[in-house]
């Protein structure tokens, strides 16, 4: 059998186990695989590999893994100022006095904040909106942390807001909406994308993101 045919056979086999879960797996193992498959970005093949890998680990290691999952879920909440993920009432970035420089960078969620942090280019503080405006999904400005952002701009003597939102329809709509809303209070710019139309902020590499931060433009 040539390699293409073997591939096809394997794919069709995996398609089948993906469709009607997991005949041939003992129940507890099937349950574990099923849990992995619910995670974003994980298909049947990867789920199976992860589950089999865990089975081969020492029990001690598995306990640590399970503890870490539970601890993260129970202890991590949101920073009361910027809404970034934080185990404390206020996150490390908001507590750091050196980052109180009058500039706020607005992001959709904590993943985007972390992507920008990795560039080490940005010295100010953040504001996590908690999503993007999308009438299709029933998300209007009132469901995002917009009011809190306006309050921060007056309370914290903010001179500049940088909008770092994915350049999708929803991201651009949110940027344009916030731009008009905030302009009376401070200068507003958005990061310039060296990113192709429709690409996601989260996946951009650090070089592209740093360049985009430098090249920000007024809205």
């Amino acid at each position, binding site marked *: 059998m040539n390699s293409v*045919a073997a591939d096809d056979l394997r794919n069709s086999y995996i398609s089948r186990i993906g469709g009607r879960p997991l005949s041939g797996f003992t129940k507890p193992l099937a349950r574990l695989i099923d849990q992995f498959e619910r995670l974003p970005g994980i298909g049947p093949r990867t789920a199976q590999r992860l589950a089999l890998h865990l089975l081969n680990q020492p029990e001690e290691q598995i306990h640590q893994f399970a503890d870490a999952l539970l601890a993260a879920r129970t202890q991590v909440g949101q920073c009361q100022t910027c809404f970034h993920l934080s185990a404390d009432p206020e996150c490390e970035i908001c507590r750091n006095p050196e980052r109180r420089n009058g500039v706020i960078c607005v992001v959709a969620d904590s993943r985007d904040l972390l992507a920008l942090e990795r560039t080490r280019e940005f010295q100010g503080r953040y504001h996590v909106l908690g999503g993007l405006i999308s009438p299709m999904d029933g998300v209007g400005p009132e469901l995002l942390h917009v009011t809190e952002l306006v309050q921060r701009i007056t309370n914290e003597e903010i001179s500049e807001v940088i909008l770092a939102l994915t350049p999708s329809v929803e991201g651009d*709509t949110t940027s*344009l909406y916030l731009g008009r809303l905030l302009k009376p209070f401070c200068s507003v710019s958005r990061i310039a994308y060296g990113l192709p139309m429709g690409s996601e902020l989260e996946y951009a590499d650090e070089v592209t993101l740093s360049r985009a931060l430098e090249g920000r433009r007024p809205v």
Partner: protein
Amino acid sequence: MIGPNGIGKSNLLEAVELLGSLRSHRCSNDRDLIQWDTPQALIRAEVGDGDRLELELRRQGGRQARRNGKLLDRQLDLIGPLRCIGFSALDLDLVRGEPALRRQWLDRVVLQLEPVYADLMARLNRLLRQRSQLWRQRQISSAERHALLDAFDVQMALVSTRIHRRRQRALHRLEPIAQSWQTHLSGGTEALELHYKPGSRLDGEDAEEPWRLAIEEQLREQREEEERLGSCRVGPHRDEIALLLGGSPARRFGSAGQQRSLVLGLKLAELELVTQLCGEPPMLLLDDVLAELDPTRQQLLLEAVGESHQCLVSATHLEGFGGGWQQQAQILGARELRPDLQIG
């Protein structure tokens, strides 16, 4: 490919079309392309000098494209090595059917010329959906609604301008080619004109900035009407392509025979323009369409494309194909139509 209905001829042609253009003329939802009891579908082909193309569709959404085993960042990068143009029974309504059919015909040409066009169209459709959903939200204040509509208008004006310009350019290039086919197919009696009637008033000089501003203004002006009627009244989704024969709309005044010839001419113009601009003849996919044409037009079509283009043809019977064609063709029956089929 000869055989009764239901043995997978159209399936195979559709797979080639998807791999070449990332679209199916038959359905717009990937879920309908995947076998009902499986989570994904895989199309794999080796084309030209051994380029290996792969497209994976998933039931839960999202596609993955690979070229020579390498995962592509954007599925658009798959377009190029396998250019193809489809001609199916659905296309026979091109002249007398809804304007959407003529927009799709034009869009296919633009997409072959500029793959980035797919992004623009996807963005326009998303904006239109978001916009109509916004009107349905009741809990939102009027001021808030208008602030969000402003944000949509800015984006729609830009995207619309870019789509209008591309459609107009493509139609200008198609017109003379369609005219010469029209002369050839009809014996040269009536002059053909292709008129672009944009769904926005394109005021000012033909350039991006003035058109963008004009469209933004029209979007604002039509808001009251939009609220009343529930749909956006300005934009490329309202474009019409008027086909005139001897000065009258072919849609209403052309005879059935004239309309058929015109459809054929338009498809051949599409084929010729894409061939010119890409430097290479695209593959032609003829899905069960020959049987719908009378013998004369069948012969004209086969003569026009047979020499220069690789064609994949599906039919239920061999009758009607000229003898010369049969000798050059590889003929596959029901027994050969299997997943590991080799063509060419």
